C-alpha cells in the first residue's frame, strides 16, 4: 500500500530537515563552533525517517551515534537538539552530552551511549518495564552494522527472544564500521538473518526507500505492540561523509561513494512525489524554504545560547549527595 500524499510530504520535510541539519552541523564543525566528534547521517535520512514514522507517544528510542535525525524525530525542538550539539546550556542535556548523548526522556528519547552496543542491554530494560507496567510501549534500538559484533547484540537478542520483548532493532547497515567493511566483520551479507539464532524475525530492506523502510518498521512495530516480540529490520544504506566530520574516509573507493550518492534517498522521494504527481517543484521548494527557516532559527539560537557554567559540572552526579568543586 503506497503512502498517501500527506505522509510522503511529511517524510520529505523530515528528510530535508535532517539533511540540512547535518550539513549545517558539518559546516559549523569545520568553522570551529562544535567541539568533539560529529558523526553525520547524511545519506541515511530515509532509514531514520521511515522507521521513526511508526514511533508513537509513550514509546522509547535509543538512538545511535549517527542519529541526530532520530533525535529530531521524537518531537524535540530542532533548536534544542542543535544547541546540545553546540554544547550549550539550552540544549536537551544542558550542553553536557553533545552529539553522542542527546536525550529527551519526556519524549521517549532515552539517549545514546557512546559505547557501541551498550544500548542493546538498556533496550531490554525499557521493554521489560513495558511488560511489567503493562503498557504498549515499543522500544526502538538503533544500531549499526559494526555494532553487531558486540556481545550485547547477542545477550539482548537472546533475552528478547525468550521474553518476547517489544523491541524493534533498527540495524542501519551502511556497509562500514569506520574503515571495516560489514562483509569483513560478519559472515552473513544480510545481517537481519542473524535473528535466526534467536527466533527473532529479520527483514532486510532498501534503506534509501523511505516507503519500504516504513513498511518494514510498521510490521515490526505492530508485532511488538501486539506482544509478539522483537524484530530486526535491516536498512541497507550508506553514509556519504567519513565516519566523523573530518575523516577523509580514504578506506573506501570513490566510485562506491558516487554510486550511493546517485541513490540519494531524498532525490528518490522527490522523484516519487513528482512522478506520482503528489507535489510540484514549487510545493517542494516551499517545504525546503520552511525547513531552512527552522534550521536558521535553530542555528541562531544555538550560537546565541550561553554555555553551561562551572557550577553545572557539580550537579547530578548523585541524587541527594553533594560533590565538592575546587
Amino acid at each position, binding site marked *: 500500500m503506497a503512502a498517501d500524499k500527506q505522509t510522503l510530504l511529511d517524510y520529505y520535510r523530515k528528510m530535508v530537515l535532517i539533511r540540512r541539519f547535518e550539513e549545517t552541523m558539518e559546516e559549523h564543525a569545520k568553522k570551529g563552533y562544535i567541539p568533539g566528534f560529529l558523526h553525520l547521517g547524511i545519506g541515511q535520512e530515509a532509514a531514520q525517517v521511515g522507521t521513526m514514522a511508526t514511533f508513537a507517544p509513550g514509546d522509547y528510542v535509543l538512538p545511535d551515534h549517527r542519529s541526530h535525525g532520530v533525535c529530531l524525530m521524537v518531537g524535540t525542538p530542532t533548536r534544542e537538539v542543535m544547541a546540545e550539539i553546540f554544547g550549550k546550556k539550552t540544549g536537551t542535556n544542558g550542553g*553536557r552530552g553533545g552529539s553522542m548523548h542527546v536525550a529527551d526522556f519526556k519524549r521517549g528519547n532515552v539517549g545514546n551511549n557512546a559505547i557501541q552496543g551498550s544500548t542493546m542491554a538498556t533496550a531490554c530494560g525499557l521493554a521489560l518495564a513495558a511488560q511489567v507496567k503493562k503498557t504498549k510501549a515499543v522500544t526502538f534500538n538503533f544500531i549499526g552494522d559494526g555494532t553487531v559484533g558486540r556481545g550485547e547484540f547477542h545477550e539482548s537478542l537472546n533475552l528478547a527472544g525468550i521474553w518476547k520483548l517489544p523491541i524493534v532493532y533498527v540495524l542501519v547497515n551502511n556497509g562500514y564500521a569506520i574503515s571495516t567493511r560489514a562483509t569483513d566483520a560478519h559472515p552473513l551479507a544480510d545481517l537481519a538473518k542473524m535473528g535466526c539464532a534467536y527466533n527473532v524475525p529479520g527483514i532486510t530492506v532498501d534503506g534509501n526507500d523511505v516507503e519500504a523502510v516504513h513498511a518494514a518498521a510498521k510490521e515490526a512495530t505492530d508485532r511488538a505492540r501486539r506482544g509478539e516480540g522483537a524484530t530486526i529490520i535491516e536498512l541497507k544504506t550508506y553514509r556519504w561523509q567519513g565516519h566523523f566530520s573530518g575523516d577523509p574516509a580514504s578506506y573506501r573507493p570513490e566510485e562506491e561513494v558516487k554510486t550511493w550518492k546517485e541513490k540519494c534517498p531524498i532525490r528518490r522521494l522527490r522523484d516519487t512525489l513528482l512522478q506520482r504527481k503528489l507535489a510540484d517543484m514549487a510545493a517542494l521548494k516551499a517545504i525546503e524554504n520552511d525547513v531552512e527557516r527552522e534550521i536558521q532559527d535553530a542555528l541562531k539560537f544555538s550560537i546565541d545560547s550561553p554555555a553551561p557554567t562551572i557550577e553545572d559540572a557539580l550537579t547530578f552526579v548523585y541524587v541527594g549527595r553533594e560533590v565538592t568543586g575546587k
Partner: protein
Amino acid sequence: MRTLNFKEALNEALHQEMTSDSRVIVLGEDVARMGGDFGVTMGLLDKFGRDRVRDTPLSEAAIIGAANGAAFCGLRPVAEIMFADFITECYDQLVNNSAKARYMFNGQVMAPIVVRTSSGAGFRAAYHHSQNIEAWFLNIPGLTIVAPSTPHDAKGLLIGAIRDDNPVIFLEHKMLYGTTGEVPEEPYALPIGVAEVKRPGTDVTIVASMKQLHYALAAAERLASEEEISCEVIDLRTLKPFDKATILSSVKKTGRVVLVNEAPKTGSINAEIAAVIMEEAFRDLSAPVERVNSLDVPVGFAPVLEDYVIPGPADITMAVRKVIDY
C-alpha cells in the same frame, strides 16, 4: 528480639520491599525458580509472580542493562550477579551507563538499581569466586557501594539501598550468609554513607567492613583483655562514599589508625582512606596509618594459600601493635 541469619535478613528485606513498593523487581540468574544460588531470593517468585521476579539467561551485561533500562522507566530493579567476580562481565554497564546516566543526561533520569552480589574469600573457590571488588569501582563517580557486616545491617542497608535513588552495588560477603543476629521484624532503612562505631576505644582506630569487621572486633577484644590496648572499631557499612566524619573524629581521639580490607593491598579502598586521613588529620597522627589487606596476589585454591593470603585477626593485632609501638 528475634534472631535471623544474614541470608534470611536479606530475604526478608526483599519480601518487605516488594510488598510495599510495586516498582521493585528482581532479576538475575537462578533467582526465581531456585531462589538464588545462596537462597537470598527464596519465595519471591511464588509471592510476586513471573513478571516481577525473573530468571535470566547467563547474560550479566543484559541483566544490568535491563536493570538500568527498567530503572529509567521508574522501576526499582534489584539485580543479582551471582558472584562478584562475574561483575567484570557487566563492568561497562555499571561504569559507563548506570554511574553516568544521571549526569550525562543532565538530571533527566535516575538509575536507582541495586546490584546484589556475593563477594569475598574463604569459600575455597579460587580465582573467580573469591574476589573483593569494591576497589574496581572506587574511581567511578556516580556509584555507591554498600557492604553490611551483620544480619541487622544487611536488612536495613538493603532496604536503604533499594530506596536510594542512585545505582548501588551491594556486597554480601559469602562467608557471612550463615552468621546470625537480632533483626527487627518491621521494615527499616539504614542510611547510606554512615559508618557505625561498633566498639568505642581510645588508643587505636580500626576501620573495617564485612567479614574483616568481625576479625577486627575479635582482635580488639583480645588486645583489650591481654594487652590493655583500647581499640575503637568502626564498621564502614558504606564503602563509597565512605563516612569521613566518623573516621576523622575517631582519629582525632586516637591518633593511630589501622585500616582493614580483604582485597589485595595495592589500590584497595584502604589507600583512599589512608590518603584522606593524611590530608585531613595529619597533625593528629602519632603514627603512619597501617593497612591490613590481602597480599598482592590472586586467591589460590589450596586452603593453605588462601589462608596465608587473606588477612586474619592476627594480622590486625600485629598492625595495632605496630602503630602503638611506632
